[in-house]
């Protein structure tokens, strides 16, 4: 039906050797990745820590899209709009109302959930590429909405808002960047666990049932309209929290930071990471953050073209993204063990 389903269905072909389509990493691998993420900042410079923080934040935003597309089978090219709403919620609350930065995160999440849930209502009538276009319109409209005159007092108009970077609490001897990294890490891991729980639960199965066959899902008692809009709400809420963290990390929000380019990047990150495979989100995020830099390193004048070639190579060689690489690695490890 929708292209998302095709992507997922094809994804399945590649994993036929594995009895059940794994959504997460094994416990061992997860702990290794976690340990690496915890230790890493101690050995690197502040700028790299900042980049790692952005990696976590984009990873979270890609994860949110993965829940929507990989989970419920709905497309979105409008994630930048939810990201912007989250970022502005935090910026406005911190700068105009002196709210603690940590408190702005759940508020941004709730605001974006409402926003996503409401947007999901009209989107119910659309699917596949048509839904992608509707969300595209949302992404295009958002920067202009943020520049509106009557909102300028709150949003700072075209100028945007400067956000104060928080210091490490409890007298911890830690740079602001390092504190923010660990703060983001805790938030991201917390949300990752909640997302895994959700997708493995009754609600998650309802999402995936809708993705695979709406009519059958409905015959089993799944309220298709409700779960589709819930998926939008959840995805928007998580994207909004990523936006909040992004605003704090970058210390600045401006309308033109949240254009359709961001939405497309997140979409790209999801595809590169593997649609429906949650750990792939961080790999996808790494791709959209670091590969443009690599491309620029190869050729300053033709960085866009080099990026295109690299992207093409990835899609051609591993069409199912990081998930496919992980499965290949797993199979290779299995063979080595046998020998």
């Amino acid at each position, binding site marked *: 039906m929708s292209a998302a389903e095709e992507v*997922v*269905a094809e994804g*399945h072909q590649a994993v*036929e050797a594995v*009895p*059940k*389509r794994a959504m997460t990493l094994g416990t061992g691998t997860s702990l290794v990745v976690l340990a690496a993420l915890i230790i890493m900042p101690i050995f690197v410079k502040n700028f790299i820590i900042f980049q790692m923080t952005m990696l976590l934040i984009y990873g979270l935003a890609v994860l949110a899209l993965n829940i929507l597309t990989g989970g419920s089978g709905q497309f979105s090219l409008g994630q930048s709009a939810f990201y912007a709403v989250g970022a502005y919620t935090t910026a406005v609350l911190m700068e105009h109302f002196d709210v603690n930065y940590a408190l702005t995160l759940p508020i941004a999440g709730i605001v974006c959930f409402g926003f996503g849930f409401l947007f999901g209502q009209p989107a119910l009538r659309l699917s596949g590429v048509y839904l992608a276009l509707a969300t595209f319109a949302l992404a295009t409209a958002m920067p202009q909405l943020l520049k509106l005159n009557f909102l300028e007092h709150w949003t700072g108009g075209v100028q945007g808002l400067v956000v104060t970077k928080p210091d490490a609490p409890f007298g911890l001897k830690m740079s602001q960047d390092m504190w923010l990294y660990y703060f983001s890490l805790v938030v991201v891991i917390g949300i990752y666990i*909640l*997302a895994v*729980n*959700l997708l493995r*639960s*009754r*609600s*998650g*199965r*309802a999402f*995936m*049932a809708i*993705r*695979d*066959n709406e*009519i*059958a*899902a*409905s*015959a*089993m*008692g*799944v*309220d*298709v309209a409700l779960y589709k809009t*819930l998926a939008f709400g*959840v995805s928007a809420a998580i994207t909004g929290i990523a936006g909040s963290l992004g605003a704090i990390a970058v210390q600045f929000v401006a309308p033109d930071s949240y254009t359709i380019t961001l939405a497309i990047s997140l979409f790209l990150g999801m595809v590169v990471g593997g649609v429906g495979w949650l750990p792939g989100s961080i790999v996808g995020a790494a791709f959209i953050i670091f590969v443009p830099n690599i491309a620029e390193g190869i050729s300053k004048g033709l960085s866009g073209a080099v990026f295109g070639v690299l992207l093409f190579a990835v899609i051609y060689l591993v069409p199912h993204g990081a998930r496919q690489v992980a499965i290949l690695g797993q199979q290779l490890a299995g063979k080595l063990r046998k020998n």
Partner: protein
Amino acid sequence: MTQAQLAQGTSPLLAVRDVSVVFGGIVALNGVSFDMHKGQILGLIGPNGAGKTTLFNCLSRLYQPSSGDILMEGASILSRPPHRIAEIGIGRTFQNVALFPNLSVMDNVRVGAHSKTSSDIISDSLRLAWVRRSETSVNKKVHEILAYLKLEDVAHTVVSGLPFGTQKRVELARALAADPKILLLDEPAGGLNHEEVYVLGDLIRRIRDERHMTVLLVEHHMGLVMSIADHVVALNFGKKLAEGTPAQVQADPDVIKAYLGSKDQ
């Protein structure tokens, strides 16, 4: 037959009352009525285009009848949206298998229990104690059904790679997971070989007897219907042609004419 049942004094579990469905100018169903009683296997037969599937889709609320009513235990189901049919005890399978291809057998069957359980996204994300308890009881139930239908070996296999016959059994398992009072089976024998049809007939009868269900069987395969149905309704051109025991319907001249054509033609 209807007279006999009235004499028994039991009210029907499901009553189809004068149901008509019109698509544009085409009358797909024209004033069809029949009753289903508890514990029956009712066979709905008819040549292609007779209106069997249309009637079936009215029961699962995919179509809205233009007139008439469908009563489940005396209450009309026509005001219910499709997703609120499972909760009143009507379960179904699909003609060409409509499973969730990327989910495991186990997860497919667990979705079948959706209408029997409740949860919300916050409790699910936090895996609260009551959600875990509910999942444990669902899993127990699912394992019981998988064992009943001999699907345990493939419990964790993704559905799309399974043979067609197994997929049909998974679909049946999914329908059973909601403990329906009425099981609607849309051409369950379609695509099965002779041997498999025989096994299927046995299985349907066992489900009726052991799990106390009432079965509506829409079927092309005459042999299957005639061997397991207690009561048969024959449709043709959207109208009820005959109703009665399999032997009565088989002997009905109108039914013979509809299937074989009359001598004058």
